[in-house]
């Protein structure tokens, strides 16, 4: 007995001595704590939940700071400008790529991606997401992390009751929205964001792109008052007046989603990330009576499915060891295994073909093929990812809202917006 105890003691002692050696080899960044600035989105909860697993594997601790959109932008910009290195990894919205690239605040990932391409499984990542969620004119300022597709959420039960087939084109969608509106029954055929600012600007830009409009011209200059844009805004106004809930002129994303979950509307173009909530009886009155389909393009047009989402960027002000540790974290959190775990936890964003094809996830979320199809024909540029984007979005956000809520003429509103936008260039 004493002999056995002695052996066990020796074994334990050997393990204890060997452990630091093994750790030093397998966990070169052990002891590093990474500070992650995360947008308060569906993926932020899973990021926090999965952080201990990463620490167990690598010895790198991860502290996730969950921030609202404006707070995130303000804090990381202050961190970059002050070169304080407060955050090691930041979530980067698709439309910030131009700003990040121009200012050079983040580590360029091109070389690391090329070096670790096999380990990462680059071929498994949708090319449109690799481009849109972090690449700006060849500079990879962020790595794709959570991709969203703009899809049409609709009510199959209402379509069936009205004897209408779900729309294949925008024109059919407009017709269906009119047919399914019944004001007396407090039911509306369509809904979109109408609130001044980013909310109305982003929804209209998506609609506008599907109808063949564009924010920039071929030379990359503002073309806000192009005939196509004016025509699409005119129809958009009619859609709002005739088929949307009256309060939609003040809806932001939350209000719009709520109107669908409350069973108020029959059609809503939205980000795929919210779809899991439609069948949650705690949140939704349309459980079992909702479906997703591809966002319909204008008649005779090539499909252009809007792409949104987030990339992960590394702060250029932190030292090389932390940068390397941050890259390890990015590779880990975007790996097929962790992406699947994130999806199971309700993360809602996807970047990999293998994740969207996963049988377990498809059983859990039957709408994944719609996202896959959208990513194959995705358009990440309908919101121009240029440094001037925030101002252009604001200008459009005021102009489109003025048309919808202030009854300003579309041509007049877009002419004024164009004039303001040109001052930025």
């Amino acid at each position, binding site marked *: 007995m004493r002999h056995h105890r002695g052996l066990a003691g020796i074994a334990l002692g050997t393990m204890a001595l060997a452990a630091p050696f093994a750790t030093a080899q397998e966990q070169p960044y052990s002891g590093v704590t990474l500070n992650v600035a995360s947008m308060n989105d569906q993926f932020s909860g899973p990021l926090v939940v999965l952080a201990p697993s990463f620490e167990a594997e690598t010895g790198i601790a991860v502290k996730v700071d969950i921030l609202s959109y*404006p707070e995130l932008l303000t804090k990381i910009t202050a961190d970059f400008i002050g070169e304080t290195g407060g955050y090691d990894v930041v979530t980067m919205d698709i439309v910030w790529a131009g700003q990040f690239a121009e200012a050079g605040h983040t580590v360029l990932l091109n070389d690391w991606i090329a070096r670790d391409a096999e380990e990462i499984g680059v071929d498994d990542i949708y090319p449109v997401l690799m481009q849109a969620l972090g690449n700006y004119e060849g500079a990879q300022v962020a790595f794709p992390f959570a991709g969203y597709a703009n899809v049409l959420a609709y009510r199959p039960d209402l379509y069936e009751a009205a004897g209408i087939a779900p729309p294949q084109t925008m024109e059919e969608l407009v017709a269906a929205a009119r047919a399914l509106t019944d004001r007396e029954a407090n039911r509306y055929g369509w809904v979109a964001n109408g609130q001044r600012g980013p909310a109305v600007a982003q929804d209209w830009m998506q609609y506008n792109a599907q109808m063949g409009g564009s924010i920039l011209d071929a030379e990359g200059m503002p073309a806000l008052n192009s005939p196509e844009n004016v025509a699409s805004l005119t129809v958009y106004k009619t859609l709002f007046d005739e088929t949307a809930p009256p309060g939609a002129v003040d809806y932001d994303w939350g209000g719009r989603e709520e*109107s669908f979950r*409350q069973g108020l509307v029959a059609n809503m173009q939205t980000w795929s990330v919210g779809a899991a909530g439609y069948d949650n009886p705690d949140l939704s009155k349309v459980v079992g009576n909702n479906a997703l389909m591809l966002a319909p393009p204008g008649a005779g047009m090539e499909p252009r499915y809007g792409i949104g989402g987030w990339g992960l960027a590394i702060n250029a002000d932190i030292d090389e060891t932390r940068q390397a540790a941050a890259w390890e974290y990015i590779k880990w959190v975007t790996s097929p295994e962790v992406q699947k775990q994130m999806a199971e936890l309700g993360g809602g964003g996807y970047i990999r073909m293998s994740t969207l094809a996963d049988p377990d996830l498809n059983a859990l979320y039957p709408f994944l093929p719609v996202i896959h199809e959208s990513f194959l024909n995705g358009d990440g540029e309908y919101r121009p990812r240029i440094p001037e984007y925030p101002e252009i979005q604001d200008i459009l956000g005021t102009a489109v809202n003025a048309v*919808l809520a202030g009854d300003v003429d579309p041509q007049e509103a877009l002419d004024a917006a164009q004039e303001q936008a040109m001052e930025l260039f």
Partner: protein
Amino acid sequence: MTSVGLATPAGRRRTGAPFAAGTFGQRRRLFLLALGLPSLLYVIAVALVPLAQGMWLSLFEYNLLRPDRRAFVGLDNYLEQISDPVVQQALWNTLVFTVLAVGIEFLLGLGLALLLWRDSLFNRVALALMLVPVAVTPLVVGLVFRALLTADFGMIGHFAAQWGLSGERGFFGYPNSAMGALIFIDVWQWTPLMALILLAGLKALPQEAIEAADVAGASPWQKLRLVIVPMLLPAIFLALVLRTMDAFRIFDSVFVTTKGGPDNATNVLMFHAVKEGLEFFNIGDASALSNLMLAAIGLIAAGFVLVIRRADRRMLG
């Protein structure tokens, strides 16, 4: 004795004694200065330095995202802001909001203070309950009212639209009612504070003067107009200045309800400045706008001082 008293400090100075030198009064002043020094340094660090920096930056074309393109532009940022129709609209919106919100809060607050003047258990409980809105963060108040007033599924907004109290788009869907809704939210939250300040002023009034007015046979209206309000002027001044400064800087409720819309109907100065500074990172423009707001608040406060002084002089003869 006098010569000894004068000789002693001089003698100490001659021997080179350091800080302990000086009369009792001098040492006391030094001691008090030492006590106040941390606060002074704090104010300099967190208020005066940023203020000076803001003034300095307002003279530059400076965007945080393009720091290398910084250029001195003198007063151009100020001229640009003053001549910008959006800023002019925002200034008008801010003034309308401030005057109406603070005016209504003052009238309601004075009424409530007069009702709660008499010291009773009921009044004490009522006062405590009345202060609940003041304790809630303005951002949360805005979010709650946004949820309540939404026309399509808000508890108040839905019925208001049904009964014709608001247009079908709801209170936030039309320019005039959106501003009205913001004023209502502010009044709901801040009237109790106004009442509290005025009540404190009422409680401090000398009872003799009021009793004398009673004896003289003054009517309640005469008593209020000729005795109570003149004596309450310091409290009125404090309440109005505090609330005006605060209302002029309204941001939170706009941010979470209308985002400045519909169109530019509720776009107020602070919202516009925050957008310039923290969304577009145009630090030069945002600093110029902030300094203009500071000047406007200073002018309003000076106006209050002038009005109250004149009223004070007139009342006191």
